[in-house]
C-alpha cells in the first residue's frame, strides 16, 4: 500500500531518475562548528534529547535552540541528559526521577568527559 502512496512519489522519482531528493536541513549547525554525531549516540544521548519528538512531527521543525549556549549547557553537565545506551533510540524515553544519580553513574561508566574546550567543536 505504501509502495504506491502519492506521498512517496518523490522517492520513487528519485530512484527512477537517479537524482537525489533535495532535503532542506532543519537541524543545521553553522559551518564553523564541527559536530560528530556518532560519539553522541555512543555516549548515551538519545535522539529526542536534541531532536525533540521527531516521531510526532508531521512536518519537521527545530525543537531546540541549537545555540552554543544550549550545547554547552549539556557539555558542562552531561549527567543531567545521559541515558543508558540501549535506550538511545527510544524516541519516547523520559528521564527517570533519579536522573541525577543515574546520570552520575552513567557518566562514570561510559567515561564521559565535560568537554568545554573550544577545539572540541571549532577547528
Amino acid at each position, binding site marked *: 500500500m505504501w509502495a504506491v502512496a502519492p506521498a512517496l512519489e518523490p522517492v520513487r522519482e*528519485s*530512484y527512477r531518475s*537517479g*537524482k*537525489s*531528493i*533535495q*532535503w*532542506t*536541513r532543519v537541524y*543545521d549547525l*553553522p*559551518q*564553523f562548528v*564541527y559536530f*560528530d554525531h*556518532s*560519539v553522541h549516540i*555512543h*555516549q548515551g544521548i538519545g535522539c529526542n534529547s536534541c531532536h525533540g519528538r521527531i516521531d510526532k512531527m508531521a512536518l519537521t521543525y527545530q525543537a531546540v535552540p541549537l545555540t552554543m549556549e544550549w550545547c554547552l549547557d549539556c557539555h558542562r553537565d552531561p549527567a543531567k541528559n545521559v541515558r543508558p545506551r540501549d535506550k538511545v533510540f527510544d524516541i519516547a524515553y523520559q528521564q527517570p526521577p533519579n536522573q541525577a544519580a543515574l546520570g552520575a553513574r552513567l557518566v562514570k561508566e561510559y*567515561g564521559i*568527559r565535560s*568537554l*568545554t*574546550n*573550544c*577545539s*572540541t567543536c*571549532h*577547528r
Partner: protein
Amino acid sequence: MKHTDDSFVPLASLTAGTAEKQTEATRRRFLEVMGASIAMTAMAGCTRQPTEFILPYVTPPEGAIPGRPSYYATASVVNGYAQGIVVESHLGRPTKVEGNPQHPASMGATAVHGQSCVLDLYDPDRAKQVTENDESRDWESFQLALTQALPALRTSGGAGLSILTETVTSPSVGAQLKAVTAAYPNAHWYQFDPAGPHTARDAARIAFGRIVNTYYRLDRADVVLSLDSDFLTTGAGSTRYAHDFASRRQVRGSHVDMNRLYVVESEMTPTGGKADHRLALRYADIEAFARQLSKAVASGGKSVETGPRAWWISALAQDLLAHRGACAIIPGDHQSPTVHVLAHAMNAALGNAGSTVIYTDPIEAAPGDQLTSLRELVAEMSAGHVQMLLILGGNPVYSAPADLSFHTALSKVPNSIHLSLHANETSALTRWIIPQKHFLEDWGDARSFDGTVTILQPLLQPLYNGRSSLEMLDAFLFPVPRPPYDIVRAYWTANSKAADFEGWWRSALQSGLVVGSALPPLTLAAPRAIPDSTTDGPPSHLDLLFRPDPYILDGRYANNAWLQELPKPLTKLTWDNAVHLSPKTAQRLGLENEHLVELTSRGQSVRGPVWISDGQADDTVIVHLGYGRRNAGKVGNNAGFNVYPLRSSDALWATGGAQVRAIGGKYRLATTQTDYRMEGRELAICEPVATYVQDPDFVKKRLEIPERTETLYPPWKYPGYSWGMSIDLTACVDCMACVIACQAENNIPVVGKEEQLVNREMHWLRVDVYNHGSAEAPEMRYQPVPCMHCEDAPCEYVCPVAATTHSSDGLNEMTYNRCIGTRYCSNNCPYKVRRFNFLLYNDWITDQLKMQRNPDVTVRSRGVMEKCTYCVQRIREAEIRSIDENRSIRDGEILTACQQVCPTRAIVFGDLNQPANRVARLKAEKLDYPLLAELNTRPHTTYLAELRNPNPALKERTD
C-alpha cells in the same frame, strides 16, 4: 625600477592563483554601497544562516561514508621514478598525500613532490581541450585524423614516425613502446629527460661495460662520503636514504654510536649542512680530489699527494678503510663520469659492493644514452625525415639543450602531437595538443629507485577527459584503443608470474607495491680503471654550474603555487631563482644580494639577480633550471629567469669560462629568512657527541630554565591526554616536506611574491637555518619551528576576545570565528609562529582548488589569525574513533601532518601522560630542551639537541 630587459615583469603582476585582493578604494566603496542595506537588514530581525540541503546518494558508492575519508595506495611519479604513497580521498576527491609505510622508497614518508602532486592535479591551468593548430577539437577527431594517417605509416613500416618520451620506468608503457616499434619497424623511440641521471649511465658503461642501476643501503653504513651528491634531499631514493641515514645517527641514552658524514661539494646543499666534515671545492677540483682519494685508499690510507688537503684526504681514506663494507661513497648525479667511475672503483676496493652499494639491472624500460637519442632525433627532424612526431609528456622546446635548437627542428615536422599536462612551450609549437591525465587520475605502473613496482590506481575520474601514454600508443596498435585499465591488466596478466592473478592484483593495489619486485642485486666484475688524467690546465675564470631547482626541477612544476612559495632549502628563497655566488667571489666582483648581473657563457647571456650563498665554492656560479617560463600558467609565468639558453649538450651540468658583470639596478628577491645568526642565544644547540659522552647533562646546564612556580598563572592539569611533540635536530635535514605537508593538510593559502616581500608568509611551520660557523666554513643547523603550544602561552592572555585558549588536553587552541584580528597574540608570541590573514589569501573562486581543500579544517578568510594546531582535526578524529570503540588512543595512532611525511622521523607527537609513549621517552632524554627556555613559557614542543660525529683525526672541518 625600470628594467630594459623584458625577462623581468613588474612585481605587482606576480600573484598566486586568482585570489582577490581588496584595495583600500574597493573596501570603502563596498561599505558605502552596503551601508544602506546593512541598516535595513538590521531592522528585519536576527538572520539565520543560509539554507543548507542534504542530497543523499541514490546509489551510494561502496564503503563511502560522507565525513570519513578513504585511503588508496598508488605512487607519485617524478621524472619517471616512483615513490609509494597513500592518498586520502574525501567523497571521491583526493585531498592529501601520505607516505606508504610498506613502500621501500618512502617508508611512510613523502618527498616534497609527493605532497605537491595534489595541487598539480587540480591546477586550473591544465590543458583541458584537445586542440589542433589552436582550434578546439576532441579526442574523436584526433582519432579520426590518426586513423587516416595510419595506413600510409603501416605500408612504410613506420618510416617518418618518431616518438619522444622522457625516462620510462613503467613496465606497461615500455611494453607498449616496444610493441609500437615492432609493429612499425622503421619508427623510432627517443628518450630525453633534461635533469635525468645521464652521468650515472655514462659512467656505468665506462666502468662495467653496461648500464646498471646503483642504489645505497645507508642503514648499513658507518661512514658516508658524498662527492657532490645531495643524496639526503634530492633524487629518486632521497626519502629512503634520509630515513636510513638518520636511523644510524640517533643518540638515545647511553647508545652513542653514530655514523659519520663527509661531504665534498661545490654547492651548499642540505646534505652538506649535515656533514660532520665538509669541503667546498670547485667542480673540477672534486674530480682531482676523487683521484687523490682513490690513490690514498689504494695505498692503505697514506695520501700520496702533498698539498693543502693531503691530511684531509689521508684521514678520510683511513676512516673509510677502517669501515670496509660498512661505508659508502656516493657520487653526485651532476658530477663528471670520471668521479662516478672512481666512486665505483673505491666502493669495490672497500668491499661496499653488495653491502652498502647495491647494483641492479636498470630500472628504465629502455636504458640508453638519452643525449645521443635527442641529438639523433633533432638531426632527423632537421633533415626532414620525421613526418609524425609524438611527444609524450615533457617540454623539449623549453628544456632541451640550447645548441640543439629543438624548436627550429620541430618546425620541420608537419604533424606533431604533444600529450601534455599543461599547454606549455612545446605545445605552442606542435600541431596537436592532447590533455594528459595526471597520475592520480590514471591506471598505470612505475618503478622506484630499487626497482620495486607499484601499480598506480586512479583516485578520481579524469577531470578534463585527458588521455595517458598508454592510450596514445594503443591508438597505433588497435583501431579502438583499449582503456588503460585493460592495458595494465593485460600486461601484468602476462608478466606477473602469479598463480592467482586476481589475488595478486588485489594485493598489489591494496598494499601499494608488488612484493618482491625489487630488482635482484647484481655481482659485477671490478670496475675498469680510469687512465690517469693529463695535468689539467689552470681553471678558467668562473665555473658555471647548472642545477635542477630543488622543487621546480627542470621546470615541470613551475605552475605549482605551493612549490613556488615553498622556501628553498638553506637560502629560503621563494618565487625566484638567482645567480648564486660565494661570499669571496661576490666581494671580488663587487656584487651584493639582489644586484642585477649579466651572466655570459659560450656567447649566450642571461640576466639575473645575485644571491650570496655561504659555503659555496669560490669562483663558481650556480644557477637553477626551471624558471623564466612563458607558457607555464598563471602561477609560473615570468617567475625568475631562464638559464636554458646557456646550457649546451656537451656540458649539461658544468662549464667553465663564464663571465658575470653587473648591469646596474636591483631585483628584489623574497626570502623568508634573512638572518642566520643566533646572536649568542641557545636556539639550535649542536655539539660533537664526545661532549655528550663526557657530560650528558650539558644541554640543561646551558639554559636558564626558571622554576615552574615562577609565574603568575596556576599550573594546568591534564586529567586525560596531554599532547606534546619532540623534534630531533640531529635527524632534520631541511628537506621541507613537513612545511608543504602542513600546507596541504590545513588549507594554508599561497600569498604570492609581493606579500612574501613584506614577510607575510603563511606557512604554519618554518625550518630555521642557522650558520654557526663562518661564511666560508659554515656550520649549518636546521630547526623546524611550529607552534610551541606553550602551557603559559603569552598569546592566550592578551587576546581581548578569548579567541585563543588552552584546552584540557594541552593544546593552544585557535578559534577562527571568534578572532577579530587585533594581532596582539602574534605580537606577544616570542617564537613568532602565528600567521595573520592580512588579505583574503584563500582562493574562494576557483572550483578546482576548492576540491583540494581538507573539509575537516576551516578555510580562513581575511582578518583572522591562524597557527599550527597540532593537527587538531586528526586528534579529534582519533579521539572520536577511540570513544566509539571503547578504548583509549594508542601511541602512534595520531600522526600530525608534519610527523607523517618526515623522512627521518625527526618529529614525534603523542600523549605526554603515558611515560611509555615514544614522545614521553624522548622528552625524558637528557638532550631534550625547550626553545627560549628562559621565558618560562613551558612549551609542549621541545627539541633534542643535535649531535655530530667529527673525526678526531680532523681537528678543523675545512682547510
